[in-house]
């Protein structure tokens, strides 16, 4: 099976969907001739031209709002927000409009748009090129929030997102673009929303993660395994819809749950998982549901010592696993 980087899988997913369905268009800042600042859309303009790949002005609200209108009139827009940090000018269009067009029209209009955005720190992006934004969107009924961690899932979930009848926020950790590789089949396949994966099984505790933190969690689990601690690692893949059953079934077996995310801890998505476990698996717990998350600074600062202090790491996750296991 061919091996692809994370970003190659995304590019192939876009290309294959554009070949499959002429209603799919791509729009965003620099997505055309340049192929995107990370080159996620490289080659699409050359293959599909101006009518399918649109370089937009630096106007994020327009990117979201025009996608909504184009979707209402028969297209399937895939919008790129250049960095997740820049999505806030589009928040009104995403939350007040895209998320509730179906609801407010009683199902008579839909909003089949996909908004891709690179997120995450660890690449010297500082305060405005490294934020994690998933909690803002996961809170909103009407949106779906996808955060793949493998090239296989990135391609399969992106296909599902583009074909989905509702608005999807598709978050790609930028540090994974070229550092993560994996097998990706050439042919048609999709990965469904709302089904977590269990890339590592174990009996002592459950680690719930997604995106880059999934990889760090797997690395941490490998380290603690040397000391005989067998951690089960769950990759959520989509945080809304959330695969509650897989989380609960795992915690009921292991009795302990550690949730890991790079986003800020306060009000972060880990709180939702923790509340779910506390409400639905309380009788099975023999330790506190624990969150390991980004410190509550406004994103990752620029200077390297500050960035390293901000970022989670396999070592930090391994330490949290050991602490919880010993409880």
């Amino acid at each position, binding site marked *: 099976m061919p091996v692809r980087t994370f970003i190659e899988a995304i590019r192939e997913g876009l290309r294959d969907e554009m070949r499959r369905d002429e209603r799919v268009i791509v729009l965003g800042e620099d997505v055309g001739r340049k192929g995107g600042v990370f080159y996620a859309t490289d080659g699409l303009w050359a293959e599909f031209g101006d009518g399918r790949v649109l370089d937009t002005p630096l106007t994020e609200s327009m990117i979201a709002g025009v996608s909504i209108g*184009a979707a209402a009139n028969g297209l399937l827009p895939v919008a790129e927000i250049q960095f997740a940090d820049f999505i806030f000018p589009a928040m009104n269009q995403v939350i007040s409009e895209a998320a509730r067009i179906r*609801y407010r029209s009683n199902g008579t209009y839909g909003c089949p748009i996909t908004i891709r955005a690179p997120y995450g720190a660890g690449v010297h992006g500082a305060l405005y090129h490294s934020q994690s934004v998933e909690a803002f969107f996961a809170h909103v009924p009407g949106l779906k929030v996808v955060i793949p961690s493998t090239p296989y899932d990135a391609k399969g979930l992106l296909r599902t997102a583009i074909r989905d*009848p509702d608005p999807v926020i598709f978050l790609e950790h930028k540090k994974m673009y070229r550092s993560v590789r994996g097998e990706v089949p050439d042919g048609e396949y999709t990965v469904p929303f709302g089904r977590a994966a269990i890339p590592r099984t174990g009996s002592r505790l459950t680690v719930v993660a997604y995106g880059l933190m999934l990889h760090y969690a797997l690395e941490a689990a490998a380290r603690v395994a040397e000391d005989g601690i067998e951690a089960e690692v769950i990759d959520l893949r989509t945080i809304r819809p959330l695969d509650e059953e897989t989380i609960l079934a795992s915690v009921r077996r292991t009795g302990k749950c550690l949730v890991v995310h790079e986003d800020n801890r306060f009000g972060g998505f880990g709180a939702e998982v923790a509340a779910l476990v506390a409400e639905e698996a309380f009788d099975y717990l023999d330790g506190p549901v624990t969150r390991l998350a980004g410190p509550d600074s406004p994103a990752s600062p620029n200077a390297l010592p500050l960035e390293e202090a901000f970022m989670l790491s396999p070592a930090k996750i391994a330490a949290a696993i050991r602490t919880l296991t010993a409880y």
Partner: protein
Amino acid sequence: VTTAGFPGAQDPVARSGLSSERLVELYRLIALARALDERAWILNRAGRTHFVISGQGHEGAEAGVTAALTPGRDWLLPYYRSMTGVMAMGMTPREVFLLQFGKADDPGSGGRQMPSHYGHAGRRVFTSSSPVGTQILHGAGIALAAKLRGIPEVALVAMGEGSANQGDVHEALNFAGIHRLPMILFVENNGYAISVPAERETAVPDIAQRAAGYAMPGVIVDGGDVVGCYLAARDAVTRALAGEGPTLIEAKVTRLTGHSSDDQQTKYRSAEELAEQRAQDPLPRFRDELRAAGVLDEASEAQIATEIAAAVADATDFAEAAADPDPSTLLRHVYAEPGDPVPGPPPAATSHDVGGRPA
């Protein structure tokens, strides 16, 4: 920026190129919208509905501009003062009042939206929200899809001059100008954003001046001149369909009521100003124009008044008696449901009675 010519005493049939019958239809639509709107206030003050936000004073401009659209082909992206426009696209008085009363059969939202937050998929009236100005980006997107798909359609976006100051409006006009989209921005300038007067809203007297910044024509029309509004929109539709791009039409209108049923405009507008505004009411002005031209006579006017009274009574009784939404439907349509249509081109518009004729 151009300013549409003053009508003077020119015959409206000759000036517009519209038939006498069509002009009478427009008069009927304006009078119907006024009567429905007045009924909505009475229902609110009687405690039978929660809220009114009104288009009184805007009806002439909305009727004139939307008369240039082809219902079933073109799109209207309305705002909360667009009762006249949505009826021009084919919505009926009953449908307007099902929304007013928040009933299950409200075709735009099933009782989920505030009154006057219009939408109707079958009539190509796009669903609207309360944060103002957002709809222009949807209009640009609809127009972009029409252009990319090679389908001759026009998206008409209606909003007030208050909304025109939103950032989304700049972003949309910029984009529409770049791609020469078949879109019309129709700004209904009534001089107030709730209580804030025009001079505190913009540094320029006319919103239409801004069109130059987007390489599109800006046209100022007298919003009480129904035929003038029609002619401006007809030219804009012609340009749009010819691939010549968007147009900004600004109609100077009057707001005859408070901003909404929760506003008291005497707090910020003088009695003299309100009296002066009342004199600019488009309804008697258009009626007098048609009378003078011999298009409207006493008999047909009386006949129309009778039909409208019946339509308003019918819409009120029908909507008030209609079923409320079932609480069990609260969580319906948050996401697509099994059996919902898959993403794709919207269904063809259904047949309809253009002009919002009384039921």
